[in-house]
């Protein structure tokens, strides 16, 4: 049958399509506007601090960058330790729920882990101070005595256990549920055919996971880690309650003088701040913003490299 081929076929534009697609664009743009508003707020409020003269800043800092540098270090340091603890555990837990636990159990187990996400950060703070710090302090003493030659465990051990390692453990427990939940959902979405193919070729369960599940899930795992990192970097009250801060930069895990995090520092100093002090704290919030920006950019690049595994491209 001969068809008149005059140019490409033009699909009829449906009203529903147009409304729907423009509302999604609107929602996306709204996020940009919101973020721009937050950024403008932060930048405007930060200018007096960044341009402040020596003597007006807290902690007798000569300029803003000297003030904020130990906080930047502390923020990244605490979040990094937390992720080092949380990533393997959350992948393990997610795998356990999706591929190891008996079907009947797995849903209940997922629910149990989700419970952790329901615990408010103040309660993590209380638990961290009253239970974890107290309980783990003897272990810190032991670590310091026996492994003190490793620089990480050196220094004078804290008497209260309120160290950066305790904080990192609390942060790890806090980010576990969100990371586990995302990983779990992604593991469950692995194409069953891939898994069965691997098993049919004689792979053990672990080999099947390594060749079929993990590669498929890698972008999701990175995504989940970023969600966790976002929470760990920005966590405020739990850190403020658990950490024993000082204005230092060191890699000791067990001492009482720990580098503070930006968010916790804001929570601790904001109530008594006035004048340039308030601007300084908001400017440090801007710095945290930028840190997240950089971390996410790196993660994006990593995810984009593995895009080929996504189902929807």
């Amino acid at each position: 049958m001969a068809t008149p081929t005059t140019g490409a076929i033009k699909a009829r534009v449906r009203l529903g399509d147009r409304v729907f697609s423009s509302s999604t664009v609107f929602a996306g743009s709204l996020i940009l506007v919101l973020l721009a508003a937050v950024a403008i707020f932060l930048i405007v409020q930060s200018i007096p601090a960044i341009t402040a003269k020596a003597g007006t800043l807290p902690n007798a800092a000569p300029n803003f960058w000297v003030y904020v540098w130990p906080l930047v270090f502390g923020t990244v340091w605490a979040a990094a330790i937390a992720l080092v603890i949380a990533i393997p555990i959350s992948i393990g837990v997610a795998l356990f729920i999706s591929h190891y636990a008996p079907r009947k159990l797995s849903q209940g187990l997922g629910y149990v882990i989700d419970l952790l996400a329901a615990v408010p950060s103040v309660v993590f703070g209380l638990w961290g101070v009253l239970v974890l710090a107290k309980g783990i302090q003897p272990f810190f003493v032991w670590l310091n005595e026996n492994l003190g030659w490793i620089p990480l465990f050196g220094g004078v051990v804290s008497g209260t256990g309120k160290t950066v390692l305790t904080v990192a453990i609390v942060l790890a427990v806090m980010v576990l549920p969100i990371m586990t939940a995302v990983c779990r959902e992604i593991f469950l979405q692995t194409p069953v055919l891939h898994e069965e193919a691997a098993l049919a070729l004689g792979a053990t369960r672990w080999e099947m996971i390594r060749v079929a599940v993990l590669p498929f899930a890698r972008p999701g795992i990175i995504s989940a880690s970023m969600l966790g990192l976002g929470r760990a970097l920005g966590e405020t009250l739990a850190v403020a309650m658990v950490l024993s801060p000082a204005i230092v930069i060191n890699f000791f895990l067990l001492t009482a003088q720990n580098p503070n995090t930006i968010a916790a520092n804001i929570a601790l100093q904001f109530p008594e701040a006035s004048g340039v002090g308030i601007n300084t704290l908001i400017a440090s919030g801007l710095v945290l913003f930028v840190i997240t920006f950089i971390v996410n950019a790196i993660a994006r690049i990593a995810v984009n490299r593995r895009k080929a595994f996504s189902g929807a491209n």
Partner: protein
Amino acid sequence: MAVSTAAGPMPNALTTGRLPKGTIWMVLGGSWLLLGLVFGLVQMAGGTKQYNLVGALFLGTVLFDILVFVISYLVEGVRQARDRLATSLVTTAFIIALLPLVSLIYTVLLNGLGRMIQPSFFSQSMRNVLGAEGGAVHAIVGTLEITAVAALISVPIGLLTSIYLVEYGRGTLARVITFMVDVMTGIPSIVAGLFAYAFFVLVTGNVGYRSGLGGSIALAVLMIPVVVRSSEEMLKLVPNELREASYALGVPKWLTVVKIVIPTSIAGITTGVMLSIARVIGETAPLLIIAGLTDSVNYDLVHDRMMTLPVLVYTQYSNQGAHQSDFVNRAWAGALTLILIVMALNLVARLIARIFAPKLGR
């Protein structure tokens, strides 16, 4: 196949070179028992004052991991040994994750349950309360209202954005939005509160502005990126074959999204939304700034201060005065109530997801 020379029964071809069924559990029990004994001896020798159950369980599990690998390597060969090691490590991860959870839930229950089940906790606010009485009605009302409005704002925005990113978004705008959403996850909660406060001061011209609505805005700022990120991942995982099949049948794109893509991923999306609610319902710092605190019930989202449960927990803990136990008990009871509310919401969401989700193989 090796034929047994002994007088015993002929070994089954399918089970040679495999560990007998109960071995793994025996090894696990054995390692726990051994470490339990070691720690018991340490305690008796005066090394530690209290019996270190957590330490015994933890080290016992580590010992189990090592033993399983070694035994399996000797009997079954390296591939099976690796498989068993992976299994035991994954299980170990799960147990390690459970330890803090159990400890936390135990602490909250131990400290909070007794106070929470007293009738006054759900029948009174803190207005004019000085002693051990008083309750959290005002905070429960505030938390439910503020979180509901925050969810009403952020779920549509977040879901639509993720649909844009997965189904429509190409080119610069999509890339920029993806990146900005990532950046948004890094807004410290206290900055969100300061932002909401500055915004409302600008709009209303009232420097003393406090309201529940402001709290909702602050929470929405924190919630949106979580909703977008998790929904985006879930939508991406919907197989393209489903979309293509739908298009092939002449279904418009928007109906494909609404009827095929979203229902397929509804379980994941609901989990994501619940997680985002759980993430913000316990936020304290921004609400302290923008929603303020009060001892009385306030149903009005737009006017005056509104109490919330995390703020109640925080203030009861940090302003104890001379009668500490009254305040600390209320703090723990408030925390327990908050956890129970999120649990209830979670249950409801799971029911919804189960009703709408298509029946799949899993």
